[in-house]
Protein backbone atom coordinates (compact mmCIF):
# COMPACT_ATOMS: atom_id res chain seq x y z
CA UNK A 1 0.00 0.00 0.00
CA UNK A 2 3.05 2.23 0.22
CA UNK A 3 2.46 3.73 -3.22
CA UNK A 4 -0.79 5.24 -1.96
CA UNK A 5 1.17 7.57 0.27
CA UNK A 6 2.28 11.02 -0.80
CA UNK A 7 5.95 11.45 -1.56
CA UNK A 8 6.19 14.06 1.18
CA UNK A 9 4.55 11.66 3.65
CA UNK A 10 7.08 8.95 2.88
CA UNK A 11 9.89 11.49 2.98
CA UNK A 12 8.87 12.42 6.48
CA UNK A 13 8.31 8.86 7.67
CA UNK A 14 11.80 7.84 6.59
CA UNK A 15 13.59 10.69 8.41
CA UNK A 16 11.46 11.46 11.41
CA UNK A 17 13.45 9.28 13.80
CA UNK A 18 16.66 11.20 13.00
CA UNK A 19 14.98 14.54 13.59
CA UNK A 20 13.64 13.35 16.95
CA UNK A 21 17.11 12.14 17.88
CA UNK A 22 18.60 15.52 17.02
CA UNK A 23 15.88 17.19 19.07
CA UNK A 24 16.73 15.20 22.21
CA UNK A 25 20.44 15.95 21.75
CA UNK A 26 19.66 19.64 21.34
CA UNK A 27 17.52 19.72 24.46
CA UNK A 28 20.41 18.17 26.37
CA UNK A 29 22.99 20.57 24.94
CA UNK A 30 20.82 23.63 25.53
CA UNK A 31 20.22 22.69 29.13
CA UNK A 32 23.87 22.58 30.11
CA UNK A 33 26.21 23.32 27.24
CA UNK A 34 27.93 20.87 24.93
CA UNK A 35 29.83 19.40 27.87
CA UNK A 36 26.69 17.53 28.92
CA UNK A 37 26.87 15.38 25.78
CA UNK A 38 28.72 12.08 25.69
CA UNK A 39 31.51 11.62 23.20
CA UNK A 40 29.48 9.57 20.73
CA UNK A 41 26.62 12.06 21.01
CA UNK A 42 29.03 14.86 20.24
CA UNK A 43 30.16 13.07 17.10
CA UNK A 44 26.57 12.35 16.13
CA UNK A 45 25.39 15.94 16.39
CA UNK A 46 27.00 17.49 13.27
CA UNK A 47 25.93 14.51 11.14
CA UNK A 48 22.34 14.82 12.31
CA UNK A 49 22.52 18.59 11.84
CA UNK A 50 23.56 18.21 8.21
CA UNK A 51 20.87 15.63 7.63
CA UNK A 52 18.27 17.98 9.06
CA UNK A 53 19.57 20.80 6.85
CA UNK A 54 19.27 18.70 3.73
CA UNK A 55 15.83 17.57 4.88
CA UNK A 56 14.88 21.22 5.16
CA UNK A 57 16.04 21.92 1.61
CA UNK A 58 14.12 18.93 0.28
CA UNK A 59 11.03 19.75 2.33
CA UNK A 60 11.00 23.28 0.95
CA UNK A 61 11.19 21.87 -2.55
CA UNK A 62 8.66 19.05 -2.40
CA UNK A 63 6.46 19.35 0.68
CA UNK A 64 3.52 21.69 1.04
CA UNK A 65 3.05 20.78 4.71
CA UNK A 66 3.84 24.10 6.35
CA UNK A 67 4.01 22.70 9.88
CA UNK A 68 6.74 20.36 8.69
CA UNK A 69 8.88 23.10 7.15
CA UNK A 70 8.32 25.32 10.20
CA UNK A 71 9.45 22.47 12.44
CA UNK A 72 12.53 21.79 10.35
CA UNK A 73 13.42 25.47 10.22
CA UNK A 74 13.26 25.75 14.00
CA UNK A 75 15.16 22.49 14.46
CA UNK A 76 17.93 23.53 12.06
CA UNK A 77 18.21 26.99 13.62
CA UNK A 78 18.58 25.53 17.08
CA UNK A 79 21.14 23.02 15.84
CA UNK A 80 22.98 25.71 13.91
CA UNK A 81 23.42 27.82 17.04
CA UNK A 82 24.74 24.83 18.96
CA UNK A 83 27.02 23.50 16.21
CA UNK A 84 28.45 26.89 15.27
CA UNK A 85 28.05 28.43 18.72
CA UNK A 86 30.85 29.31 21.08
CA UNK A 87 32.88 26.19 21.55
CA UNK A 88 35.27 27.08 24.36
CA UNK A 89 34.34 26.33 27.92
CA UNK A 90 34.28 29.01 30.56
CA UNK A 91 37.68 28.27 32.23
CA UNK A 92 39.40 28.21 28.83
CA UNK A 93 37.70 31.41 27.82
CA UNK A 94 38.76 33.14 31.01
CA UNK A 95 42.35 31.92 30.60
CA UNK A 96 42.38 33.16 27.01
CA UNK A 97 40.94 36.48 28.07
CA UNK A 98 43.67 37.16 30.60
CA UNK A 99 46.47 35.59 28.60
CA UNK A 100 45.87 37.24 25.26
CA UNK A 101 42.56 38.93 24.45
CA UNK A 102 42.59 41.61 27.09
CA UNK A 103 46.22 42.83 26.73
CA UNK A 104 45.93 42.73 22.94
CA UNK A 105 42.72 44.77 23.04
CA UNK A 106 44.41 47.31 25.31
CA UNK A 107 47.45 47.46 23.04
CA UNK A 108 45.24 48.13 20.05
CA UNK A 109 43.83 51.16 21.90
CA UNK A 110 47.19 52.81 22.59
CA UNK A 111 46.42 55.99 20.64
CA UNK A 112 43.09 56.52 22.37
CA UNK A 113 44.70 55.71 25.72
CA UNK A 114 47.24 58.45 25.16
CA UNK A 115 44.51 60.94 24.26
CA UNK A 116 42.41 60.18 27.31
CA UNK A 117 45.48 60.30 29.54
CA UNK A 118 46.36 63.76 28.20
CA UNK A 119 42.77 64.94 28.67
CA UNK A 120 42.63 63.75 32.28
CA UNK A 121 46.07 65.14 33.06
CA UNK A 122 45.26 68.57 31.63
CA UNK A 123 41.98 68.66 33.54
CA UNK A 124 43.77 67.67 36.75
CA UNK A 125 46.39 70.39 36.28
CA UNK A 126 43.78 73.05 35.53
CA UNK A 127 41.73 72.04 38.58
CA UNK A 128 44.87 72.02 40.73
CA UNK A 129 45.85 75.53 39.67
CA UNK A 130 42.31 76.89 40.04
CA UNK A 131 41.71 75.40 43.49
CA UNK A 132 45.19 76.48 44.56
CA UNK A 133 44.31 80.11 43.73
CA UNK A 134 40.78 80.08 45.12
CA UNK A 135 39.52 77.19 47.29
CA UNK A 136 35.90 77.98 46.33
CA UNK A 137 36.55 76.26 43.02
CA UNK A 138 36.73 73.00 44.94
CA UNK A 139 32.96 72.65 45.03
CA UNK A 140 32.70 72.95 41.26
CA UNK A 141 34.95 69.95 40.78
CA UNK A 142 33.95 67.56 43.54
CA UNK A 143 30.53 66.14 44.29
CA UNK A 144 29.67 66.56 47.98
CA UNK A 145 28.78 62.86 48.29
CA UNK A 146 32.25 61.82 47.23
CA UNK A 147 34.10 64.41 49.31
CA UNK A 148 32.47 63.18 52.57
CA UNK A 149 33.78 66.06 54.63
CA UNK A 150 37.11 66.49 52.88
CA UNK A 151 36.55 70.04 51.67
CA UNK A 152 38.19 73.44 52.25
CA UNK A 153 36.10 74.07 55.39
CA UNK A 154 37.63 71.07 57.17
CA UNK A 155 40.49 71.55 59.58
CA UNK A 156 43.98 70.37 58.73
CA UNK A 157 43.89 67.90 61.59
CA UNK A 158 40.69 66.26 60.42
CA UNK A 159 42.06 66.08 56.89
CA UNK A 160 45.14 64.34 58.23
CA UNK A 161 42.91 61.92 60.10
CA UNK A 162 41.18 60.90 56.88
CA UNK A 163 44.58 59.98 55.46
CA UNK A 164 45.64 57.81 58.40
CA UNK A 165 42.64 55.93 59.48
CA UNK A 166 43.45 54.03 62.65
CA UNK A 167 41.06 51.16 62.19
CA UNK A 168 38.34 52.49 64.47
CA UNK A 169 35.30 50.26 64.73
CA UNK A 170 32.73 53.03 64.41
CA UNK A 171 33.49 53.79 60.80
CA UNK A 172 32.12 52.19 57.69
CA UNK A 173 35.12 52.87 55.50
CA UNK A 174 35.05 49.52 53.75
CA UNK A 175 31.44 50.19 52.82
CA UNK A 176 32.56 53.54 51.49
CA UNK A 177 35.30 51.81 49.46
CA UNK A 178 32.80 49.41 47.97
CA UNK A 179 30.54 52.33 47.18
CA UNK A 180 33.45 54.02 45.43
CA UNK A 181 34.16 50.87 43.46
CA UNK A 182 30.61 50.51 42.18
CA UNK A 183 30.47 54.25 41.54
CA UNK A 184 33.69 54.18 39.54
CA UNK A 185 32.64 51.11 37.63
CA UNK A 186 29.39 52.82 36.62
CA UNK A 187 31.35 55.92 35.53
CA UNK A 188 33.67 53.73 33.48
CA UNK A 189 30.73 51.96 31.85
CA UNK A 190 29.19 55.31 30.99
CA UNK A 191 32.46 56.58 29.52
CA UNK A 192 32.47 53.51 27.30
CA UNK A 193 28.79 53.49 26.41
CA UNK A 194 28.60 57.19 25.56
CA UNK A 195 31.67 57.05 23.34
CA UNK A 196 29.72 56.43 20.16
CA UNK A 197 28.28 59.97 20.43
CA UNK A 198 31.33 61.28 18.56
CA UNK A 199 33.53 60.95 21.69
CA UNK A 200 32.18 64.12 23.33
CA UNK A 201 30.47 62.77 26.49
CA UNK A 202 33.44 60.48 27.14
CA UNK A 203 35.79 63.46 26.99
CA UNK A 204 33.53 65.37 29.38
CA UNK A 205 33.52 62.48 31.87
CA UNK A 206 37.30 62.19 31.71
CA UNK A 207 37.70 65.93 32.27
CA UNK A 208 35.36 65.79 35.27
CA UNK A 209 37.21 62.84 36.75
CA UNK A 210 40.62 64.44 36.21
CA UNK A 211 39.35 67.71 37.66
CA UNK A 212 38.17 65.95 40.80
CA UNK A 213 41.59 64.39 41.27
CA UNK A 214 43.36 67.74 40.79
CA UNK A 215 41.01 69.51 43.21
CA UNK A 216 41.54 66.93 45.96
CA UNK A 217 45.27 67.15 45.54
CA UNK A 218 45.25 70.96 45.61
CA UNK A 219 43.20 70.94 48.83
CA UNK A 220 45.66 68.69 50.60
CA UNK A 221 48.73 70.47 49.23
CA UNK A 222 47.38 73.80 50.53
CA UNK A 223 47.45 72.27 54.04
CA UNK A 224 50.97 70.94 53.63
CA UNK A 225 49.72 67.36 53.28
CA UNK A 226 50.64 66.96 49.60
CA UNK A 227 53.09 64.09 49.95
CA UNK A 228 50.87 62.15 52.33
CA UNK A 229 47.76 62.70 50.23
CA UNK A 230 49.65 61.51 47.17
CA UNK A 231 50.37 58.19 48.84
CA UNK A 232 46.80 57.91 50.10
CA UNK A 233 45.35 58.58 46.65
CA UNK A 234 47.83 56.70 44.52
CA UNK A 235 47.95 53.37 46.39
CA UNK A 236 44.79 52.46 44.56
CA UNK A 237 44.64 55.48 42.25
CA UNK A 238 47.34 54.25 39.92
CA UNK A 239 45.13 51.24 39.15
CA UNK A 240 41.83 53.08 39.29
CA UNK A 241 42.81 56.08 37.19
CA UNK A 242 44.47 53.80 34.66
CA UNK A 243 41.21 51.84 34.46
CA UNK A 244 39.12 54.96 33.90
CA UNK A 245 41.58 56.19 31.26
CA UNK A 246 41.26 52.84 29.49
CA UNK A 247 37.45 53.04 29.68
CA UNK A 248 37.65 56.48 28.09
CA UNK A 249 39.95 55.08 25.41
CA UNK A 250 37.44 52.32 24.68
CA UNK A 251 34.70 54.91 24.32
CA UNK A 252 36.89 57.05 22.07
CA UNK A 253 37.66 54.16 19.75
CA UNK A 254 33.95 53.61 19.10
CA UNK A 255 33.27 57.32 18.62
CA UNK A 256 36.26 57.62 16.31
CA UNK A 257 35.17 54.73 14.11
CA UNK A 258 31.69 56.27 13.87
CA UNK A 259 33.21 59.59 12.75
CA UNK A 260 35.79 58.08 10.41
CA UNK A 261 34.68 54.61 9.36
CA UNK A 262 37.15 54.36 6.48
CA UNK A 263 36.30 51.86 3.79
CA UNK A 264 33.60 50.10 5.78
CA UNK A 265 30.07 51.23 6.48
CA UNK A 266 29.58 53.19 9.68
CA UNK A 267 27.61 50.37 11.28
CA UNK A 268 30.24 47.75 10.51
CA UNK A 269 33.05 49.99 11.72
CA UNK A 270 31.19 50.72 14.96
CA UNK A 271 30.48 47.03 15.50
CA UNK A 272 34.11 46.09 15.01
CA UNK A 273 35.42 48.82 17.30
CA UNK A 274 32.67 48.01 19.79
CA UNK A 275 33.70 44.40 20.11
CA UNK A 276 37.37 45.22 20.59
CA UNK A 277 36.58 47.98 23.06
CA UNK A 278 34.21 45.68 24.96
CA UNK A 279 37.04 43.25 25.62
CA UNK A 280 39.13 46.07 27.04
CA UNK A 281 36.14 47.22 29.08
CA UNK A 282 35.54 43.82 30.66
CA UNK A 283 39.14 44.07 31.83
CA UNK A 284 38.56 47.58 33.13
CA UNK A 285 35.92 46.22 35.50
CA UNK A 286 38.50 43.73 36.77
CA UNK A 287 41.01 46.54 37.28
CA UNK A 288 38.46 48.59 39.19
CA UNK A 289 37.81 45.59 41.38
CA UNK A 290 41.53 45.29 42.13
CA UNK A 291 41.59 49.02 42.85
CA UNK A 292 38.63 48.61 45.19
CA UNK A 293 40.45 45.89 47.13
CA UNK A 294 43.61 48.02 47.33
CA UNK A 295 41.52 50.94 48.51
CA UNK A 296 39.42 49.07 51.03
CA UNK A 297 42.08 46.92 52.62
CA UNK A 298 45.54 48.01 51.50
CA UNK A 299 44.93 51.57 52.54
CA UNK A 300 43.57 50.60 55.94
CA UNK A 301 46.34 48.16 56.77
CA UNK A 302 49.30 50.14 55.40
CA UNK A 303 49.82 53.48 57.08
CA UNK A 304 53.38 54.31 55.97
CA UNK A 305 53.64 56.77 53.10
CA UNK A 306 56.66 55.19 51.48
CA UNK A 307 55.12 51.72 51.32
CA UNK A 308 51.98 53.26 49.87
CA UNK A 309 54.05 54.92 47.18
CA UNK A 310 55.95 51.69 46.57
CA UNK A 311 52.71 49.77 46.06
CA UNK A 312 51.40 52.51 43.75
CA UNK A 313 54.49 52.46 41.55
CA UNK A 314 54.75 48.67 41.59
CA UNK A 315 51.11 48.20 40.55
CA UNK A 316 51.45 50.79 37.80
CA UNK A 317 54.58 49.09 36.45
CA UNK A 318 52.88 45.71 36.69
CA UNK A 319 49.89 46.90 34.67
CA UNK A 320 52.10 48.55 32.06
CA UNK A 321 54.28 45.47 31.68
CA UNK A 322 51.22 43.22 31.52
CA UNK A 323 49.50 45.27 28.84
CA UNK A 324 52.35 46.40 26.65
CA UNK A 325 54.76 43.49 26.84
CA UNK A 326 55.11 42.47 23.18
CA UNK A 327 53.01 39.42 22.32
CA UNK A 328 52.86 37.36 19.19
CA UNK A 329 49.71 38.09 17.24
CA UNK A 330 47.05 35.41 17.33
CA UNK A 331 47.82 32.46 15.04
Amino acid at each position, binding site marked *: *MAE*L*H*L*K*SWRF*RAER*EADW*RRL*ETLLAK*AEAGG*ASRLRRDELLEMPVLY*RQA*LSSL*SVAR*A*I*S*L*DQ*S*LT*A*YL*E*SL*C*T*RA*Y*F*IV*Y*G*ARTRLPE*RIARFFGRDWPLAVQALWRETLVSFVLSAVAAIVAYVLVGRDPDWFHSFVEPGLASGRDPTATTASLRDTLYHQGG*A*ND*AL*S*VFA*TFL*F*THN*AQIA*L*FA*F*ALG*FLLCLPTAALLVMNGGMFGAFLALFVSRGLGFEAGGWLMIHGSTELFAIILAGAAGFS*IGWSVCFPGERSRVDA*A*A*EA*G*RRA*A*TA*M*AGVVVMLFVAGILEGFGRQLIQADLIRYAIAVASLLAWLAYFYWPRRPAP
Partner: protein
Amino acid sequence: MSLQGVLGRFRRAPRVRKPPFDGWRELVTPEGVDLRLKVGSYAERFAALLIDYVILFGSLALFSLLALGVFWATKAQWGSEALGVVWLLGVFLGRNFYFLIFEAGPRAATPGKRSMGLRVAAADGGRLTADMVFARNAMREVEVVLPLTFFLARGEGVDAALISLGALWSLVFVVFPLFNRDRRRLGDLVAGTMVVKAPKTVLQPDLADTQRMASQGIAFTPAQLDAYGIKELHVLEDVIRAADRRAMAEVAARIRTKIGWDGPTDLADRTFLNAYYAALRGRLESQVLFGRRRKDKFDRG
Protein backbone atom coordinates in the same frame (compact mmCIF):
# COMPACT_ATOMS: atom_id res chain seq x y z
CA MET B 1 39.68 64.39 -17.54
CA SER B 2 36.60 66.33 -18.61
CA LEU B 3 34.46 68.30 -16.19
CA GLN B 4 31.71 65.74 -16.65
CA GLY B 5 34.09 63.00 -15.63
CA VAL B 6 35.21 64.88 -12.53
CA LEU B 7 31.63 65.62 -11.52
CA GLY B 8 30.70 62.03 -12.18
CA ARG B 9 33.16 60.94 -9.56
CA PHE B 10 31.43 62.97 -6.90
CA ARG B 11 27.93 62.01 -7.88
CA ARG B 12 26.37 59.54 -5.53
CA ALA B 13 26.14 56.00 -6.66
CA PRO B 14 22.57 55.10 -7.61
CA ARG B 15 20.80 53.76 -4.59
CA VAL B 16 19.89 50.14 -4.71
CA ARG B 17 16.32 49.90 -3.51
CA LYS B 18 16.01 47.21 -0.92
CA PRO B 19 12.76 45.27 -0.75
CA PRO B 20 10.50 46.38 2.09
CA PHE B 21 11.29 44.75 5.39
CA ASP B 22 8.92 41.91 6.20
CA GLY B 23 10.32 40.80 9.56
CA TRP B 24 12.40 37.99 8.08
CA ARG B 25 16.10 37.97 7.63
CA GLU B 26 18.15 35.55 5.65
CA LEU B 27 20.89 33.60 7.37
CA VAL B 28 22.84 31.32 5.07
CA THR B 29 24.69 28.58 6.91
CA PRO B 30 28.14 27.46 5.74
CA GLU B 31 26.33 24.51 4.16
CA GLY B 32 24.51 26.96 1.89
CA VAL B 33 21.00 26.66 3.28
CA ASP B 34 19.05 29.80 4.12
CA LEU B 35 17.56 29.36 7.59
CA ARG B 36 15.31 32.43 7.31
CA LEU B 37 15.29 33.89 10.80
CA LYS B 38 12.40 35.96 12.07
CA VAL B 39 13.45 39.17 13.76
CA GLY B 40 12.01 39.61 17.25
CA SER B 41 9.10 42.04 17.29
CA TYR B 42 9.01 45.18 19.43
CA ALA B 43 6.22 43.86 21.63
CA GLU B 44 8.03 40.61 22.34
CA ARG B 45 11.29 42.33 23.11
CA PHE B 46 9.66 44.88 25.37
CA ALA B 47 7.80 42.14 27.21
CA ALA B 48 11.06 40.21 27.58
CA LEU B 49 12.75 43.29 29.02
CA LEU B 50 9.92 43.85 31.48
CA ILE B 51 10.04 40.22 32.63
CA ASP B 52 13.80 40.46 33.07
CA TYR B 53 13.54 43.64 35.11
CA VAL B 54 10.81 42.15 37.28
CA ILE B 55 13.05 39.14 37.95
CA LEU B 56 16.12 41.31 38.49
CA PHE B 57 14.53 43.86 40.81
CA GLY B 58 12.49 41.20 42.55
CA SER B 59 15.60 39.26 43.43
CA LEU B 60 17.48 42.44 44.37
CA ALA B 61 14.64 43.43 46.69
CA LEU B 62 14.61 39.94 48.18
CA PHE B 63 18.38 40.15 48.60
CA SER B 64 18.08 43.52 50.33
CA LEU B 65 15.35 42.24 52.65
CA LEU B 66 17.52 39.27 53.50
CA ALA B 67 20.48 41.57 54.22
CA LEU B 68 18.28 43.79 56.38
CA GLY B 69 16.95 40.75 58.21
CA VAL B 70 20.43 39.49 58.96
CA PHE B 71 21.47 42.96 60.08
CA TRP B 72 18.48 43.27 62.36
CA ALA B 73 19.08 39.83 63.84
CA THR B 74 22.79 40.26 64.55
CA LYS B 75 22.99 44.02 65.27
CA ALA B 76 26.75 43.61 65.31
CA GLN B 77 28.93 46.47 64.07
CA TRP B 78 31.20 44.28 61.97
CA GLY B 79 28.05 42.67 60.64
CA SER B 80 26.60 45.91 59.36
CA GLU B 81 29.84 46.79 57.61
CA ALA B 82 30.25 43.43 55.93
CA LEU B 83 26.58 43.43 55.00
CA GLY B 84 26.90 46.85 53.45
CA VAL B 85 29.78 45.63 51.30
CA VAL B 86 27.94 42.47 50.32
CA TRP B 87 24.79 44.39 49.49
CA LEU B 88 26.57 46.97 47.33
CA LEU B 89 28.53 44.30 45.47
CA GLY B 90 25.43 42.16 45.03
CA VAL B 91 23.43 45.02 43.54
CA PHE B 92 26.31 45.98 41.28
CA LEU B 93 26.80 42.42 40.04
CA GLY B 94 23.10 41.88 39.51
CA ARG B 95 22.61 45.11 37.65
CA ASN B 96 25.55 44.62 35.32
CA PHE B 97 25.95 40.89 34.95
CA TYR B 98 22.42 39.51 34.95
CA PHE B 99 22.04 39.94 31.21
CA LEU B 100 25.67 39.11 30.47
CA ILE B 101 25.70 35.73 32.18
CA PHE B 102 22.46 34.52 30.64
CA GLU B 103 23.20 35.73 27.14
CA ALA B 104 26.72 34.30 27.11
CA GLY B 105 25.31 30.88 28.01
CA PRO B 106 24.36 28.14 25.54
CA ARG B 107 20.81 29.45 25.10
CA ALA B 108 21.97 33.02 24.41
CA ALA B 109 18.87 34.37 26.09
CA THR B 110 17.80 35.78 29.45
CA PRO B 111 14.80 34.15 31.15
CA GLY B 112 12.59 36.93 29.78
CA LYS B 113 13.82 36.40 26.24
CA ARG B 114 13.46 32.67 26.56
CA SER B 115 9.88 32.95 27.66
CA MET B 116 9.20 35.08 24.59
CA GLY B 117 11.02 32.62 22.32
CA LEU B 118 13.80 35.09 21.55
CA ARG B 119 17.55 34.75 21.49
CA VAL B 120 20.59 36.84 20.65
CA ALA B 121 22.48 36.07 17.45
CA ALA B 122 25.43 37.59 15.67
CA ALA B 123 24.13 39.81 12.89
CA ASP B 124 26.50 38.34 10.32
CA GLY B 125 25.36 34.81 11.12
CA GLY B 126 28.69 33.95 12.71
CA ARG B 127 29.49 32.90 16.22
CA LEU B 128 28.12 34.87 19.13
CA THR B 129 31.09 35.71 21.33
CA ALA B 130 31.31 36.89 24.92
CA ASP B 131 32.66 40.32 23.96
CA MET B 132 29.63 40.92 21.74
CA VAL B 133 27.34 40.12 24.63
CA PHE B 134 29.36 42.37 26.92
CA ALA B 135 29.21 45.27 24.46
CA ARG B 136 25.48 45.02 23.88
CA ASN B 137 24.76 44.94 27.59
CA ALA B 138 27.20 47.70 28.52
CA MET B 139 25.21 49.93 26.17
CA ARG B 140 22.10 49.19 28.20
CA GLU B 141 23.38 51.82 30.65
CA VAL B 142 22.81 54.47 28.02
CA GLU B 143 19.57 53.08 26.67
CA VAL B 144 17.74 52.44 29.93
CA VAL B 145 19.50 54.06 32.88
CA LEU B 146 20.28 57.41 31.26
CA PRO B 147 16.71 58.16 30.08
CA LEU B 148 15.35 56.99 33.44
CA THR B 149 17.74 59.30 35.29
CA PHE B 150 16.60 62.22 33.22
CA PHE B 151 12.92 61.41 33.58
CA LEU B 152 13.14 60.91 37.32
CA ALA B 153 15.29 64.01 37.90
CA ARG B 154 13.59 67.05 39.39
CA GLY B 155 14.75 70.65 39.07
CA GLU B 156 13.63 74.24 38.78
CA GLY B 157 14.39 77.05 36.35
CA VAL B 158 17.42 76.42 34.19
CA ASP B 159 17.82 72.97 35.71
CA ALA B 160 14.35 72.00 34.59
CA ALA B 161 15.06 73.17 31.05
CA LEU B 162 18.33 71.25 30.98
CA ILE B 163 16.69 68.12 32.35
CA SER B 164 13.92 68.23 29.78
CA LEU B 165 16.47 68.74 27.00
CA GLY B 166 18.44 65.79 28.34
CA ALA B 167 15.28 63.71 28.47
CA LEU B 168 14.54 64.54 24.83
CA TRP B 169 18.11 63.72 23.88
CA SER B 170 18.13 60.42 25.70
CA LEU B 171 14.78 59.54 24.14
CA VAL B 172 16.68 59.14 20.88
CA PHE B 173 18.29 55.98 22.27
CA VAL B 174 14.98 54.60 23.43
CA VAL B 175 13.26 54.92 20.06
CA PHE B 176 16.36 53.93 18.09
CA PRO B 177 15.13 50.37 17.31
CA LEU B 178 12.06 51.83 15.59
CA PHE B 179 14.16 53.35 12.85
CA ASN B 180 16.31 50.61 11.44
CA ARG B 181 16.04 47.33 9.66
CA ASP B 182 16.20 44.27 11.89
CA ARG B 183 14.95 46.39 14.84
CA ARG B 184 18.38 46.59 16.39
CA ARG B 185 18.94 48.74 19.40
CA LEU B 186 22.09 50.75 19.91
CA GLY B 187 23.81 48.01 21.86
CA ASP B 188 23.05 45.58 19.06
CA LEU B 189 24.60 47.96 16.57
CA VAL B 190 27.77 48.46 18.57
CA ALA B 191 28.12 44.74 19.25
CA GLY B 192 27.05 43.53 15.80
CA THR B 193 24.23 41.41 17.21
CA MET B 194 20.51 41.12 16.72
CA VAL B 195 17.59 39.55 18.54
CA VAL B 196 15.83 36.83 16.60
CA LYS B 197 12.91 34.55 17.13
CA ALA B 198 14.01 31.01 17.91
CA PRO B 199 10.92 29.19 19.11
CA LYS B 200 10.85 25.50 19.85
CA THR B 201 8.34 24.02 17.44
CA VAL B 202 6.81 20.64 18.04
CA LEU B 203 6.54 18.24 15.12
CA GLN B 204 2.81 17.79 14.57
CA PRO B 205 1.27 14.70 13.00
CA ASP B 206 1.03 14.65 9.24
CA LEU B 207 -2.52 15.39 8.12
CA ALA B 208 -2.06 13.66 4.80
CA ASP B 209 -2.47 10.12 6.04
CA THR B 210 -3.85 8.91 2.74
CA GLN B 211 -4.00 5.27 3.70
CA ARG B 212 -6.73 5.84 6.23
CA MET B 213 -8.63 8.06 3.84
CA ALA B 214 -8.47 5.57 1.00
CA SER B 215 -10.02 2.93 3.20
CA GLN B 216 -13.00 5.20 3.71
CA GLY B 217 -13.54 5.39 -0.03
CA ILE B 218 -13.51 9.15 -0.42
CA ALA B 219 -12.26 10.23 -3.83
CA PHE B 220 -12.12 13.55 -5.66
CA THR B 221 -12.00 14.23 -9.37
CA PRO B 222 -9.08 16.24 -10.81
CA ALA B 223 -11.49 19.09 -11.58
CA GLN B 224 -12.58 19.21 -7.94
CA LEU B 225 -8.95 19.38 -6.81
CA ASP B 226 -8.12 22.16 -9.26
CA ALA B 227 -10.36 24.57 -7.37
CA TYR B 228 -7.63 25.71 -5.00
CA GLY B 229 -3.91 26.55 -4.84
CA ILE B 230 -1.11 26.43 -2.26
CA LYS B 231 -2.30 29.42 -0.27
CA GLU B 232 -5.72 27.87 0.29
CA LEU B 233 -4.05 24.57 1.17
CA HIS B 234 -2.11 26.28 3.95
CA VAL B 235 -5.21 28.01 5.26
CA LEU B 236 -7.01 24.67 5.25
CA GLU B 237 -4.11 23.14 7.20
CA ASP B 238 -4.38 25.89 9.81
CA VAL B 239 -8.14 25.36 10.11
CA ILE B 240 -7.81 21.61 10.60
CA ARG B 241 -4.99 21.98 13.14
CA ALA B 242 -6.87 24.63 15.10
CA ALA B 243 -9.76 22.11 15.28
CA ASP B 244 -12.44 24.73 15.89
CA ARG B 245 -15.78 23.03 15.20
CA ARG B 246 -17.62 26.06 13.83
CA ALA B 247 -14.78 27.21 11.60
CA MET B 248 -14.44 23.69 10.21
CA ALA B 249 -18.19 23.46 9.50
CA GLU B 250 -18.14 26.78 7.66
CA VAL B 251 -15.05 25.93 5.62
CA ALA B 252 -16.36 22.46 4.79
CA ALA B 253 -19.66 23.96 3.59
CA ARG B 254 -17.83 26.44 1.35
CA ILE B 255 -15.60 23.80 -0.16
CA ARG B 256 -18.56 21.51 -0.78
CA THR B 257 -20.38 24.19 -2.76
CA LYS B 258 -17.27 25.31 -4.57
CA ILE B 259 -16.32 21.87 -5.84
CA GLY B 260 -19.91 20.69 -6.28
CA TRP B 261 -19.54 17.79 -3.85
CA ASP B 262 -21.82 14.91 -4.79
CA GLY B 263 -20.39 12.17 -2.61
CA PRO B 264 -21.77 10.92 0.73
CA THR B 265 -23.49 13.75 2.62
CA ASP B 266 -23.37 12.18 6.07
CA LEU B 267 -19.59 12.63 6.21
CA ALA B 268 -18.29 14.43 9.32
CA ASP B 269 -16.79 17.86 8.52
CA ARG B 270 -13.43 16.90 9.92
CA THR B 271 -13.20 13.71 7.92
CA PHE B 272 -14.22 15.52 4.76
CA LEU B 273 -11.71 18.33 5.30
CA ASN B 274 -8.93 15.87 6.08
CA ALA B 275 -9.64 13.89 2.98
CA TYR B 276 -9.83 16.96 0.79
CA TYR B 277 -6.62 18.33 2.32
CA ALA B 278 -4.71 15.13 1.64
CA ALA B 279 -5.99 14.85 -1.91
CA LEU B 280 -5.34 18.53 -2.65
CA ARG B 281 -1.86 18.35 -1.22
CA GLY B 282 -1.10 15.24 -3.25
CA ARG B 283 -2.20 16.97 -6.44
CA LEU B 284 -0.37 20.22 -5.74
CA GLU B 285 2.78 18.40 -4.68
CA SER B 286 2.86 16.34 -7.84
CA GLN B 287 2.47 19.59 -9.79
CA VAL B 288 5.40 21.01 -7.79
CA LEU B 289 7.50 18.02 -8.77
CA PHE B 290 6.79 18.89 -12.39
CA GLY B 291 7.96 22.43 -11.78
CA ARG B 292 4.68 24.24 -11.35
CA ARG B 293 3.83 25.98 -8.08
CA ARG B 294 0.24 27.08 -8.13
CA LYS B 295 0.26 30.09 -5.81
CA ASP B 296 -3.47 30.40 -5.09
CA LYS B 297 -6.84 29.72 -6.60
CA PHE B 298 -6.53 32.66 -9.03
CA ASP B 299 -3.26 31.30 -10.43
CA ARG B 300 -4.33 29.67 -13.66
CA GLY B 301 -0.85 30.03 -15.22
